[in-house]
């Protein structure tokens, strides 16, 4: 507390300094501001900083731009209204100020390159001037003009020209010049050249430039200077995917680098090789990687490289034997630091197999055999993860190997269980394997011994397993049933509704037990009880119910979110879980038949991070796979020949001259171990459901109501209102169902009806240019062709609405749109006008799914027939699903005249289309205010035209549809809601020409969006 107060004080001092006239003070204050600055204090100093952009001294302007860059980094939306000032800085007469603004532009272009394509020309010109030596001489560094500035510009150009031939066209010249100019042999020119090469290979290619860049890379790679070599390898790695021939040109250099004494160079070379791996050279490359791993001690490098080896092995393995051996090496070298995905993927691969069943069995058999040999060694220490993989494979597939007595395997597992280095997690895996093996052996002494030993173990988990095993052994038939052979991939049916418990529940209810209530219901009841005791009007539960309503969809006790509702219809069929291995961590204890003992392959599969050093283990494992290859190399005595040989094996299958292959096979590389598409599907669906869950928690009330409403296609207003109020709390229910219609008319809408023409055009002029300002020519055209401009029916005329504008038209059909802002949604009224003299049949109107918007009812509408020269109308209700300041809803019209015709159109919708006033008392406001957590504060300057608070508030009321709750002195409170029912509260205070805005809402994005609108409105007026 003390320190935060202290830092606050510092910042206030800085603010004073900023207002100072002393140059040094201002300078130092700006430096501090651009280093550490709290986000919430930005509004306080932003106007001061903006003033400094006009300062006469370049150093002040430059530092002000740097401060803005900092603000942009920590709170981009707070500076989004001053983008034009960035542009001014870019055009500043001083090179230093311009250079400072480039940091902001690099960041903005990284996030959205398409928005700044128009600046390409400026950046090119600047670079041209810099390269041409137009800057003052003191910008030179070792007689190279402003090298770091050049690098920055090259980066920006690379981002702008990526996948964009037209923009790239503009920069070819200057890139060529940069490549040419940077010929002095100095490190800094190499840095520029490197950046240049990267840019040339990033933008739309031009062969001439590529050639020059390739030459440049060659110079780097061949250089005796080690730093340059590194740079060359890095550049080569970057470009090699586009131009593998380049690797062929430098293959001998790459081979030399592979044996370079500097491990950093080696590692960079391996990175390069990883990019050019294919079916032909995978054996050699993986071998080189494993060799490197043996020497490496650094954990991060091991994790990284092991992941790459596993990936390559899975993709390009030439045969089973090699694959298993490589994976063994990966597990023993990588130890327990390997990424958990690696063992999971490996096991999944084994379990699911490929298209050829025979091949699968061979792979599995080979795996079992190799593990048995590994376990043969008495004192070998294996990483836990490796042991887990081994025991799973042995448990599942050891019965495939007929020439080994199961008793031998059991004995090995038994001895492992007694080892001290085996963690309890691994023991569970081993026990599971023992159980599986026991299920298909008749009677085993080892199992008996094991049961006896662990029945009184101190480890409760092991004891549990021992007892289970004991009981299962007594009933072999049940055991066989429970543990079928090779069934790890079979789908399991999960009864998510837990219908088998119905009897139990009804029995309980019969005995007078209280029915189950979901969490949020209990909470609401608790709150309402409190209210009864307090005798106070209740209106606080908003936040609580918002957060809890997000949870209601996830009551499924299995922990899997099926989105099933639990409203008692437990007769529904169980959901199929498609991929058993994805269910790690989920214990499926209950099925249709009742209790299911754990499927062994899932036991204890949570991959707890364990760090065990395992560097010493790697040597032995690695030996085998290399045998064939090293023999081959050893037979050639001369070192050079050896390298040649290596080169030819490394670079087979690359580029056009793949013929150099000595040992490569003729067939093209095919991906051997292809994942089945099934997995991808489930992953996708999982992602989707994850997304939904996360979305649900953010926009609780929005999402919860929407799916229900989608179902009732009639779109009955009454049911919708009722449903909305069901999931929101009392206060909103009141507001929506009873108060809102009247208050809307009373407070906001009626006022605006009178001056709707004026305020609407000003309100939407900037955000909806597309709709509200159709090009004059189009207007005239339509006017001349269509005598009838469609108009709204009477019942809609009374509501506030926009002008009718034309969306698009063809020879036969014209499309018009009118937005009607109803109380509960945005009503898009679309008019279709048939311009021909014959009727149009089967006209289909369809809205595409938009990220931010939700169309209630169905997104399509069909007109069976539109008579000649007549106008048809359809209405669609829209809600905002995800908050954005502005979004596009696109759609198409499909109709048949002489041929199939499709007309596309798009509608721009702004956040304001979905904001409605929210009437409440000052008391309710206070309570709701306290219960809301997301807040945003900002100071904005008031223009002289609205110097008083009430004037400013009136502007907000008129233009943003906010409801003024109360005005007390120089403070005012306003409330609004985003349809259907997300409230947002605003507190305003005036002080010395500034208007301090303070928003609060249960939804975090809403205040930001509204703030932006407020800023715009206040700036305009």
């Amino acid at each position: 507390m003390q320190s935060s107060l202290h830092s606050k004080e510092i910042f206030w001092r800085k603010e004073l300094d900023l207002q100072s006239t002393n140059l040094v003070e201002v300078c130092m204050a700006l430096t501090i501001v651009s280093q550490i600055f709290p986000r919430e204090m930005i509004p306080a100093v932003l106007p001061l900083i903006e003033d400094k952009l006009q300062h006469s001294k370049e150093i002040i302007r430059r530092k002000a731009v740097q401060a803005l860059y900092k603000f942009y980094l920590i709170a981009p939306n707070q500076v989004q209204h001053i983008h034009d000032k960035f542009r001014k800085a870019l055009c500043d007469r001083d090179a230093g100020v311009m250079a400072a603004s480039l940091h902001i532009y690099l960041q903005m272009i990284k996030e959205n390159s398409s928005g700044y394509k128009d600046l390409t020309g400026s950046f090119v010109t600047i670079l041209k001037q810099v390269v041409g030596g137009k800057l003052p001489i003191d910008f030179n560094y070792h007689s190279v003009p402003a090298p770091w500035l050049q690098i920055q510009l090259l980066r920006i150009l690379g981002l702008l020209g990526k996948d964009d031939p037209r923009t790239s066209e503009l920069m070819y010249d200057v890139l060529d010049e940069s490549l040419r100019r940077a010929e002095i042999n100095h490190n800094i020119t190499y840095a520029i050249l490197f950046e240049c090469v990267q840019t040339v290979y990033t933008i739309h290619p031009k062969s001439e430039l590529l050639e020059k860049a390739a030459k440049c890379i060659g110079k780097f790679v061949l250089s005796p200077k080690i730093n340059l070599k590194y740079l060359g390898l890095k550049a080569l790695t970057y470009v090699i995917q586009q131009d593998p021939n380049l690797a062929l040109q430098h293959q001998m250099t790459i081979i030399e680098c592979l044996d370079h004494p500097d491990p950093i160079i080696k590692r960079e070379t391996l990175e390069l090789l990883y990019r050019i791996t294919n079916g032909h050279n995978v054996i050699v490359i993986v071998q080189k990687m494993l060799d490197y791993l043996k020497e490496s001690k650094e954990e991060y490098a091991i994790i990284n490289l092991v992941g790459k080896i596993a990936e390559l092995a899975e993709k390009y393995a030439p045969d089973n034997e090699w694959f298993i051996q490589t994976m063994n090496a990966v597990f023993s070298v990588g130890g327990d630091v390997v990424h958990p995905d690696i063992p999971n993927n490996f096991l999944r691969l084994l379990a699911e197999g490929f298209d050829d069943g025979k091949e699968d069995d061979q792979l599995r058999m080979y795996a079992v055999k190799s593990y048995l040999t590994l376990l043969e060694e008495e004192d070998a220490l294996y990483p836990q993860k490796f042991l887990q993989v081994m025991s799973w494979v042995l448990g599942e597939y050891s019965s495939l190997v007929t020439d080994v007595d199961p008793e031998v395997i059991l004995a090995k597992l038994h001895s492992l269980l007694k080892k001290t280095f085996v963690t309890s997690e691994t023991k569970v895996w081993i026990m599971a394997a023992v159980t599986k093996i026991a299920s298909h052996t008749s009677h085993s002494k080892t199992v008996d011994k094991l049961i006896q030993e662990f029945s009184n173990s101190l480890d409760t988990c092991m004891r549990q397993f021992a007892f289970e095993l004991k009981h299962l052994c007594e009933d072999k038939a049940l055991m066989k049933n429970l543990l079928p052979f090779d069934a790890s991939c079979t789908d399991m049916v999960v009864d998510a509704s837990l219908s088998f418990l119905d009897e139990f529940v009804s029995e309980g209810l019969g005995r007078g037990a209280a029915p189950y209530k979901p969490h949020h219901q209990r909470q609401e009841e608790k709150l309402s009880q409190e209210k009864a005791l307090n005798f106070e009007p209740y209106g606080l539960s908003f936040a609580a119910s918002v957060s809890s309503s997000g949870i209601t969809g996830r009551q499924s006790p299995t922990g899997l979110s099926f989105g099933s509702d639990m409203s008692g219809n437990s007769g529904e069929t169980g959901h199929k879980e498609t991929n058993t291995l994805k269910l790690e961590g989920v214990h499926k204890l209950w099925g249709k038949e009742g209790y299911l003992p754990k499927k062994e392959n899932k036991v204890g599969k949570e991959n707890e991070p364990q760090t065990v050093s395992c560097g010493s283990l790697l040597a032995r494992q690695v030996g085998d796979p290399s045998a064939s290859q090293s023999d081959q190399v050893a037979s050639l005595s001369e070192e050079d020949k050896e390298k040649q040989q290596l080169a030819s094996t490394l670079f087979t299958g690359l580029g056009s001259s793949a013929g150099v292959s000595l040992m490569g096979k003729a067939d093209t590389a095919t991906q051997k171990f292809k994942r089945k598409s099934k997995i991808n599907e489930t992953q996708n669906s999982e992602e989707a459901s994850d997304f939904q869950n996360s979305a649900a928690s953010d926009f609780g009330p929005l999402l919860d109501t929407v799916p229900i409403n989608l179902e009732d296609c009639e779109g009955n207003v009454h049911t919708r209102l009722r449903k909305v109020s069901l999931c929101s709390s009392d206060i909103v229910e009141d507001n929506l169902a009873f108060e809102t219609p009247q208050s809307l008319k009373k407070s906001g809408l009626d006022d605006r009806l009178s001056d709707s023409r004026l305020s609407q055009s000003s309100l939407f002029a900037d955000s909806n240019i597309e709709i509200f300002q159709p090009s004059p020519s189009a207007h005239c055209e339509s006017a001349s062709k269509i005598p009838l401009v469609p108009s709204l029916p009477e019942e809609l005329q009374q509501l506030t609405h926009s002008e009718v504008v034309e969306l698009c038209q063809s020879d036969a059909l014209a499309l018009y749109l009118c937005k009607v802002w109803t109380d509960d949604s945005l009503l898009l009224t679309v008019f279709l006008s048939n311009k021909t003299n014959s009727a149009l049949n089967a006209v289909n109107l369809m809205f595409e799914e938009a990220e931010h918007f939700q169309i209630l009812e169905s997104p399509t509408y069909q007109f069976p027939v539109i008579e000649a020269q007549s106008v048809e109308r359809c209405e669609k209700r829209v809600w905002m699903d995800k908050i954005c300041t502005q979004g596009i809803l696109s759609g198409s019209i499909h109709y048949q005249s002489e041929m199939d015709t499709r007309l596309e159109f798009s509608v721009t919708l702004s956040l304001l289309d979905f904001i409605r006033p929210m009437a409440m008392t000052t008391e309710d406001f206070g309570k709701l205010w306290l219960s809301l957590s997301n807040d945003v504060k900002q100071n904005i300057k008031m223009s002289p035209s609205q110097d008083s608070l009430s004037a400013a508030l009136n502007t907000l009321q008129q233009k943003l549809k906010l409801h003024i709750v109360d005005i007390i002195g120089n403070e005012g409170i306003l409330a609004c809601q985003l349809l259907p029912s997300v409230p947002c509260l605003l507190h305003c205070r005036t002080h010395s020409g500034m208007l301090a805005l303070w928003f609060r809402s249960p939804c975090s994005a809403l205040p930001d969006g509204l703030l932006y609108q407020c800023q715009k409105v206040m700036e305009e007026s």
Partner: protein
Amino acid sequence: MIKFFLMVNKQGQTRLSRYYEHVDINKRTILEAEVIKNCLSRSKDQCSFIEYKDFKLVYRQYAALFVVVGINETENEMAVYELIHNFVEVLDKYFSRVIMFNLDRVHIILDEMVLNGCIVETNRNRILAPLFVLDKVAES
């Protein structure tokens, strides 16, 4: 992006450190120790860039002093390598001899050159301009 800027002597003592990304104080000590260990273990004919964890180190040795800069993969190693030299040249220009008695000045110089992990100024005269003004104020 530049993550941190260190000046360490051969004995492994940190002379100056500046972080552009938040790192816990106690983690800094460990990081600095490991970084200098990495740099010291390399010979003159090895390259000046080290891959360390998920970022890269660029280092340069001046007599008994190491300047080490941690960067992420988007940064151009050679440009940073030269930035170090530029920084040392600026120090050389400003301080007549020993620099380590005026660490506050070194900090000011560094802050003029690198801000929020970005190289913001490389023009020697401009880097030193505010410092000269400060000195003048101090004199009068």
